[in-house]
C-alpha cells in the first residue's frame, strides 16, 4: 500500500554543511552549493516477465516513468526553501492474486483464449483435491487426475495511471539550531494523500554531534474503481459499507492516517569517519488494504467424497475470490546505523548501512547496504553500490486459503423443502492477503551512479540498478516459492544546476564587462526558439512548462455540434459507425528541458527532451448507445519526442534581429499505448491524441524577428512542423503544422515586462490509421477529427533578474486564450493554455 511517510530534514546535509561552514577551509562556493540547487531527473523502472508456467500471456510487465524536479534556495542567509515536484506514470501487468496452477487463474475470459483480457479469478466450476486437500490437475483428454500443488500469480494489467506530487519545506537556521516545516500533496486517480511535517536539528559539541528530530502526519483517501469484469464475482462483504455504485462502476473508498516520528544522531568519530544512528516509529490506522489484490479461497466440503467417476477418492472444491483484508492498525519501528569512512590513499568514501524493521503485522526486515564513492578527477565520480534486503512474512499472509466447508450448500428440511446455506465467515481468518510484498523473501540489488561536474556549476548524474526478488534469498530460508520471483532494472539521469556557482560566474562577468549583456528583448513564454545567445561559449539551461485544456462543447467546424450529429457523423459513416461517447475534458501537461549552447556568436545548438502527461474524461451522448467508458477517464504519461535544433543568426543590428531555426524532432515518445482489456474485450490502442509523441521524424523550421527600443519591444515568428514519414510504427502520422505569431511588449518596471500576442495555427488531419483493430467509440478515435485552424490571444509577463544570487535568471508566464476554433470533423473545443518558462544563461 502507501509508502509510509517519515518526514524530517535529512541530518546528512547538516553535518556536511557544518563541516563546510569553516572559514578558510574550503572554497566559499561549495558552502552554498547544496542550498542553492535546481535539479531535473528522469527515471525508468522496468520489471521482467513473471513465471506463468506455460500460459500464453500478452501482458507487458509493469513499467514506470518518473519525472522529478526540485530546487533548494536560500531566501536569506538563514531562511531556506526547498520544493519538489514528482510525476510517475505506470502501466503493465501486476499480480492480483495467487492460486494453485490447477485453478487456471490466468485463463482468459476472452474468446481468443490468450491470457490478456481480464483473467478469471474464480473458475465457476469444480476443483478436485486429494484426501489431504492438495489440488489435483485434470487432464482434459483422459480425465486423469494428478497432484499439482504448483502455485502461480494471476496477472492483470493496468491502463496507464499517473501520480503527481508537490511538496515544500521551509527552514530557519540559527547558529546551532534549525527548525523546519513542510507539507505536500500526492494525487492519483484513485488515491490522494496530504502530508505535513515539522523538524528540528541541534548541533552540539562544536558541530561534531548533530541531533535531528521530526514528526509527520499523512492523511490518505483511497477511492478505487474495482475491475468491471471482476467486481461481480469478487466477494466484498467485509467492505459493504465502503462500497458505492458510481456511474455503473463499483467504487471502494477508504481512509488511512499515518503518524510518524523520527530521531537521528550523527557523530564525527575522527577526521576521516563519522557515524549516524536513526530511529523511526510510525503508526497507521484505517484502510490499509490494496484494493486491487484478492485472496483466492478454496472451499471444500469434507463430506464431498464422491463426484465425478474420473475422480474417485477426490474431494470437490470451489474457488472464490475475496477482497483482501488487513488489520486496521499498524505500528512500525525502524532502527539503523550508517558508518562512513574516508579512504585516504584513494580519496574514496566507504558507506556501510544497516537497517532493522519490526512491526506488529509480524514482519521483521533487515537491510544491508554498501557503497564506494570514488572520485576519478576532472569532476567525475563513480559510486558502485550493493544492497541486500530480507523480510519475514506478515502473520496473515498466505498465497491462498483453504476452508473446509462448502461455499454454498443446498440442504433439505424434514419436509423435503430445499434451502441454501452459505459458508460461515467465522471459519475464515480475520485477515488475509496474498500480496507478494507481505510474503517472506530476500532481494539483492546492485548498481552504479556516475556523476560529472562541469566547471560552470552544471552537473550530470546517471544511475543504474538491477534488482532480484527471490523467496530463496530470505535470511534463514523459508521464503516464498520461486513462482513469485521477479527482477527489475531501473535507470535514471539527472541534471543539476548549482545556482551559487552560476551567480558567482555572473558577478565576475559583470565586473569585467560592466554591462548586462544577457538581457534580451523579452519574448512571450509560449514562443519557442525566440532567443538567440550572441556570445560564443555561452550556455543556457531552462525549463518550459505547458498546460493545455480542452473542455466544453464538441465543435463541428466553428459551430457547436448537437449530440445527435456527433452520434451519426462523428465516427465514420453508416449505421455501424456510430459514436457512443465524446470527450468532456482533455488536459495535457508538458515538461520540457531546454539546453542551449553557443559554439560561436552566430550559432546556437539546442537539445529539448520532454516529459508529457495527458488526461481525458468522457460523457455519454444523447441518442447514442450507452457505453461503459463514461464516468471514468484515461491517462497517459512518459517521455515525449526529443528536439534537436540549431538557431542561426541572419541579421543583427542594434534594434532589429532576425534568426532562423532548423531542427528535427526525434520520435522518442510512445505511440503504441493501449488501454487495458476490460468489459471482456480488448479495446486496443488509446485515442490518437493521447499518445505521447508523433512517432515520425519531423522537420521543424522557424524564422524569428525581434526588435527593441527603450522600454518597447516587439517580434514575430513563422514556424512549422513537416512530418518526414507517411506513417509511424502504429500506422498513422499527425498532420503537418504551421504557426504565425506576432507580439508586443512593454517594460512596466525595471525587470518586469508585459506582453500581448496574437497566434494563428493551422494543422492538417491525421493521415493513415491504427494498424491494429481498436475500439473507436469516440470522435477522438477517428483520424479526420484532428487538426483545423485556430486563433489565440496571449497575455504574458516576463521577469529578468539582473542582480543578486539569481542574476541571469529569467521567468516568464503566458496565458493563451482561444478566440476562434475551426476544427476538422468533430472536436472538443479548446478552453485555455498556460506556458511558463524559467531559464538561466551563463
Amino acid at each position, binding site marked *: 500500500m502507501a509508502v*509510509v*511517510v517519515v518526514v524530517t530534514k535529512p541530518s546528512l546535509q547538516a553535518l556536511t554543511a557544518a*563541516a563546510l561552514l569553516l572559514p578558510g577551509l*574550503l572554497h566559499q562556493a561549495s558552502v552554498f552549493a547544496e542550498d542553492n540547487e535546481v535539479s531535473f531527473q528522469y527515471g525508468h523502472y522496468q520489471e521482467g516477465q513473471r513465471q506463468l508456467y506455460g500460459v500464453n500471456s500478452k501482458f507487458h510487465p509493469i513499467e514506470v516513468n518518473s519525472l522529478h524536479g526540485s530546487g533548494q534556495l536560500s531566501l536569506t542567509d538563514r531562511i531556506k526553501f526547498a520544493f519538489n515536484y514528482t510525476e510517475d506514470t505506470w502501466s503493465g501487468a501486476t499480480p492480483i492474486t495467487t492460486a494453485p496452477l490447477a485453478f487456471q487463474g490466468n485463463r482468459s475470459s476472452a474468446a481468443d483464449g490468450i491470457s490478456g483480457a481480464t483473467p478469471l479469478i474464480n473458475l465457476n466450476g469444480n476443483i478436485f483435491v486429494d484426501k489431504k486437500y492438495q489440488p489435483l490437475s485434470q487432464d482434459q483428454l483422459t480425465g486423469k487426475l494428478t497432484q499439482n500443488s504448483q502455485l502461480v500469480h494471476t496477472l492483470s494489467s493496468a491502463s496507464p495511471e499517473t*501520480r503527481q506530487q508537490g*511538496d515544500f519545506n521551509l527552514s530557519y537556521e540559527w547558529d546551532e539550531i534549525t527548525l523546519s516545516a513542510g507539507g505536500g500533496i500526492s494525487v*492519483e486517480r484513485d488515491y490522494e494523500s496530504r502530508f505535513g511535517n515539522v523538524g528540528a536539528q541541534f548541533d552540539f559539541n562544536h558541530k561534531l554531534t548533530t541531533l535531528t528530530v521530526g514528526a509527520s502526519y499523512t492523511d490518505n483517501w483511497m477511492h478505487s474503481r474495482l475491475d468491471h469484469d471482476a467486481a461481480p464475482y469478487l466477494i466484498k462483504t467485509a467492505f459493504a459499507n465502503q462500497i458505492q455504485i458510481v456511474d455503473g462502476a463499483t467504487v471502494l473508498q477508504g481512509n488511512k492516517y499515518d503518524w510518524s516520528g523520527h530521531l537521528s544522531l550523527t557523530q564525527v568519530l*575522527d577526521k576521516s569517519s563519522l557515524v549516524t544512528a536513526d530511529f523511526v516509529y510510525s503508526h497507521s490506522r484505517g484502510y490499509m488494504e490494496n484494493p486491487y489484490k484478492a485472496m483466492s479461497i478454496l472451499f471444500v466440503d469434507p463430506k464431498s467424497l464422491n463426484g465425478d467417476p474420473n475422480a474417485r477418492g477426490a474431494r470437490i472444491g470451489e474457488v472464490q475470490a475475496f477482497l483482501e483484508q488487513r488489520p486496521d492498525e499498524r*505500528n512500525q519501528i525502524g532502527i539503523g546505523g550508517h558508518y562512513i569512512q574516508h579512504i585516504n590513499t584513494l580519496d574514496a568514501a566507504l558507506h556501510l548501512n544497516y537497517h532493522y524493521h519490526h512491526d506488529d503485522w509480524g514482519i521483521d526486515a533487515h537491510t544491508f547496504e554498501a557503497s564506494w564513492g570514488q572520485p576519478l578527477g576532472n569532476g567525475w565520480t563513480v559510486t558502485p553500490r550493493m544492497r541486500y534486503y530480507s523480510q519475514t512474512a506478515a502473520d496473515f499472509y498466505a498465497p491462498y486459503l483453504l476452508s473446509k466447508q462448502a461455499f454454498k450448500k443446498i440442504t433439505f428440511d424434514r419436509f423435503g423443502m430445499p434451502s441454501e446455506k452459505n459458508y460461515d465467515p467465522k471459519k475464515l481468518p480475520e485477515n488475509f492477503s496474498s500480496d507478494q510484498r507481505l510474503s517472506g523473501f530476500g532481494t539483492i540489488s546492485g548498481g552504479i551512479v556516475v556523476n560529472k561536474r562541469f566547471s560552470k556549476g552544471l552537473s550530470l548524474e546517471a*544511475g543504474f540498478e538491477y534488482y532480484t526478488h527471490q523467496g530463496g534469498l530470505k535470511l534463514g530460508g523459508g521464503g516464498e516459492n520461486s513462482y513469485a520471483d521477479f527482477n527489475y532494472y531501473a535507470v535514471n539521469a539527472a541534471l543539476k544546476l548549482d545556482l551559487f556557482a552560476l551567480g558567482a560566474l555572473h558577478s565576475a562577468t559583470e565586473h569585467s564587462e560592466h554591462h548586462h549583456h544577457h538581457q534580451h528583448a523579452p519574448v512571450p513564454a509560449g514562443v519557442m526558439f525566440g532567443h538567440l545567445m550572441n556570445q560564443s561559449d555561452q550556455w543556457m539551461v531552462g525549463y518550459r512548462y505547458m498546460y493545455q485544456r480542452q473542455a466544453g462543447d464538441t465543435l463541428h467546424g466553428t459551430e457547436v455540434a448537437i449530440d445527435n450529429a456527433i452520434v451519426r457523423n462523428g465516427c465514420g459513416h453508416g449505421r455501424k459507425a456510430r459514436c457512443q461517447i465524446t470527450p468532456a475534458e482533455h488536459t495535457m501537461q508538458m515538461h520540457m528541458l531546454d539546453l542551449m549552447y553557443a559554439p560561436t556568436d552566430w550559432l546556437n545548438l539546442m537539445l529539448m527532451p520532454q516529459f508529457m502527461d495527458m488526461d481525458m474524461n468522457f460523457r455519454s451522448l444523447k441518442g447514442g448507445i450507452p457505453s461503459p467508458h463514461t464516468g471514468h477517464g484515461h491517462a497517459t504519461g512518459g517521455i515525449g519526442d526529443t528536439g534537436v535544433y540549431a538557431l542561426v543568426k541572419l541579421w543583427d543590428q542594434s534594434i532589429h534581429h532576425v534568426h532562423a531555426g532548423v531542427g528535427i524532432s526525434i520520435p522518442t515518445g510512445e505511440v503504441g499505448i493501449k488501454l487495458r482489456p476490460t468489459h471482456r474485450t480488448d479495446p486496443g490502442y488509446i485515442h490518437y491524441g493521447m499518445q505521447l509523441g508523433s512517432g515520425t521524424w519531423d522537420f521543424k523550421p522557424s524564422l524569428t524577428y525581434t526588435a527593441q527600443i527603450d522600454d518597447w519591444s516587439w517580434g514575430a515568428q513563422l514556424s512549422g512542423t513537416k512530418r518526414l514519414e507517411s506513417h509511424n510504427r502504429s500506422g498513422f502520422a499527425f498532420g503537418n503544422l504551421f504557426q504565425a505569431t506576432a507580439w508586443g511588449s512593454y517594460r512596466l518596471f525595471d525587470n518586469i515586462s508585459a506582453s500581448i500576442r496574437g497566434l494563428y495555427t493551422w494543422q492538417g488531419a491525421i493521415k493513415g490509421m491504427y494498424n491494429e483493430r481498436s475500439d473507436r467509440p469516440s470522435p477522438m478515435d477517428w483520424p479526420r477529427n484532428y487538426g483545423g485552424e485556430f486563433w489565440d490571444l496571449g497575455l504574458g509577463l516576463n521577469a529578468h533578474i539582473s542582480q543578486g544570487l539569481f542574476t541571469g535568471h529569467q521567468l516568464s508566464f503566458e496565458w493563451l486564450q482561444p478566440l476562434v476554433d475551426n476544427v476538422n470533423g468533430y472536436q472538443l473545443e479548446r478552453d485555455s493554455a498556460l506556458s511558463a518558462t524559467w531559464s538561466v544563461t551563463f
Partner: protein
Amino acid sequence: MKSTIMLSLFSLFLLAVILSGCSEVSAWQRGHLAKPHMAVQPHPLQVVLRGHIYGSREAALASGANEGGGGCGCY
C-alpha cells in the same frame, strides 16, 4: 512493541553519550568530512527515486530519510 521502542531509544541515547565523548576533531581537520562523497546522502535524488520503488515492492519502512508523500504505490 512499546518495550522495543524504549529499548531502541535507550540504545540511541547510550550511543550518543559514548560517542560524543570520544572525538575531538578541530575545524581545520575536517577537510575529508566536507567532501561531497562523504555526505551522509551523497545522492539525494537517487535515494528519493529508489525509496519509492522499494516502498512499492517491500514491506519495511524505507531506511534513511523519507521526505514525504509516496502515494498508494498500488502496483
